[in-house]
């Protein structure tokens, strides 16, 4: 566990750096809109967008890039047709169906190539090159709510848990360097590689769900995932008024499992209105929705402090 020195001298000594990830399982439940508002409400934090595949938080926070880095990860096989003797060993050994023969000889389909190097190792003519791949960029930026670490994977690239780890590492170092005690992360949908990476070393995962069969189903899976990796878990029911019965089922699930409910938020067009203005909802004139969001963030801070 990492420590940072408390900003105002020694009176409060050293304080834990905390990391919160907002996840959802199902996409489109409102993760990013809520993370944007929390970024506005939280103090002393680094903001981090871990949805490196389809990131959206920057559309609300409009970061200006202070530092841009290339992200290189993995390799890709390429057959040199001048050296290829067309024996076909590569194609027969590839377990990903990435190598096919056409009129020009054997070719690697980059979209199917897993970068395992088996074809390179077994090519008797040494005709297969294995260059490293650039998969995207990552950025350190400033926003009106504080520093932000984020990335963009090239479309179609491998959704690298490695890029998520790079972002988390950078965010933690930045927090330490600037005496900030919170890393607030927007996570990816699903339960696979990028989500698993985003949970590593995290103190609290807050799942945003909605009262629909898909929302509840996916919440249960993402809750099990957090249980599997022993990460603290809390739930926000967004658009709770869409289906009161389903909301009750989610509440029962949370109470059975002992997951704290951080909020019930109504289905409110103000969220989209804010998005269209590239603002977060708490920046618009005060509404019931934004008041509830302030309370929600206060509850999350309490949970994180535990």
């Amino acid at each position: 566990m990492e420590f940072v020195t408390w900003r105002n001298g020694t009176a409060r000594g050293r304080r834990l750096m905390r990391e919160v990830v907002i996840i959802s399982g199902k996409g489109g439940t409102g993760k990013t809109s809520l993370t944007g508002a929390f970024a506005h409400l939280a103090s002393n934090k680094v903001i981090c967008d871990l949805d490196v595949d389809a990131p959206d938080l920057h559309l609300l926070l409009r970061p200006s890039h202070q530092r841009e880095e290339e992200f290189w990860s993995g390799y890709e096989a390429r057959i040199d047709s001048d050296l290829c003797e067309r024996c076909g060993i590569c194609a027969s050994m590839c377990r990903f169906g990435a190598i096919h023969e056409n009129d020009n000889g054997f070719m690697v389909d980059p979209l199917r190539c897993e970068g395992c190097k088996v074809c390179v190792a077994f090519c008797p003519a040494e005709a297969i090159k294995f260059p490293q791949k650039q998969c995207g960029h990552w950025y350190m930026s400033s926003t009106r709510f504080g520093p932000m670490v984020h990335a963009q994977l090239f479309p179609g690239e491998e959704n690298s848990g490695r890029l998520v780890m790079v972002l988390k590492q950078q965010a933690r170092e930045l927090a330490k360097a600037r005496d900030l005690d919170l890393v607030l992360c927007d996570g990816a949908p699903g339960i696979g590689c990028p989500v698993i990476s985003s949970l590593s070393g995290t103190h609290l995962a807050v799942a945003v769900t909605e009262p629909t069969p898909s929302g509840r189903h996916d919440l249960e899976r993402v809750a099990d995932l957090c249980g599997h990796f022993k990460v603290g878990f809390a739930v926000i029911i967004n658009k709770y008024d869409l289906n009161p019965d389903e909301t009750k089922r989610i509440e029962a699930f949370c109470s059975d499992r002992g997951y704290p409910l951080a909020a019930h938020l109504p289905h409110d067009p103000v969220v989209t209105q804010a998005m269209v203005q590239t603002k977060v909802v708490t920046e618009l004139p005060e509404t019931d929705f934004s008041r509830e969001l302030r309370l929600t963030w206060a509850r999350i801070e309490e949970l994180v402090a535990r």
Partner: protein
Amino acid sequence: MIVSVASGKGGTGKTTVSASLTTIWDGPVLAVDLDVEEPNLHLFLRPTIEESQRAYIKIPVVDESKCTYCGTCSDLCQFKAISVVNKLVLTFPEMCHGCGGCIAICPEKAISEGKRELGEISWGGAGNAGFLMGRLRIGEAMSPPLMRQVKARLDKMIAKDPQDAIIDAPPGVSCPAVNAVIDSDVIILVTEPTPFGLYDFQLAWEAFCPLNKPMGAVVNRAGLGNDQIYNFCQDKGLPVLAEIPFDRAIAEAYARGQIITEVSGRIEQIFIDLRDGIRDLAERHGSREAAYA
């Protein structure tokens, strides 16, 4: 014909569109859920599952009595799944991509195939349609290997009973999403007219363009945000095949687990027109390809 329903941004209505298309499809059709991390199609189609199989990936098992600790396997492995340190060989099964390289390259033939569970593949029927889905095991990081096995099952089912297939793809634009749509004939991108919807739609368009497949857009929650998505579609020559209005009655029907074609005849007609638009798109692309060939 295989139709993939993809999106970029999650929660734009992929599953709604897939389920609705399945119910109004006019011919033999198989509904396939390739969003193996968070499969939802079964919640709406409520299929009868006839068979389920566990799916596995092949991983290395080292026979230490034969191992000479030469390190050839760990030199080849790109995923840090096998490692040799002095007189110790360690495998990290959860890191293994199942390429089989270590097994093939070991000079002592000391490595054999074991397996790691990826999840489950299930199939059956939903009304008049066939049904097929994959479900990733909780804690498993890699969805593409399971998706490849679901697609292999899909090929078998189509070979046995010729039929169309509608694939509910995972969100995003990276390898799982590309893996889902790569073998389909038509790609439908479902989006919503908001800044998030537009941005992720642009990424999806960029990711899927190199596949050179006919693509069309479905704008869900039309009337919700702004109209930039239409400008983008027009710029890129991407046909908008359907618009589903932003309507609380639809959102509530979905929240109850209903297929939204049941909401009204008007909504049903939207999907009938979408189906015809998809067929049309596939035919036009087919004849253009034939002209080039």
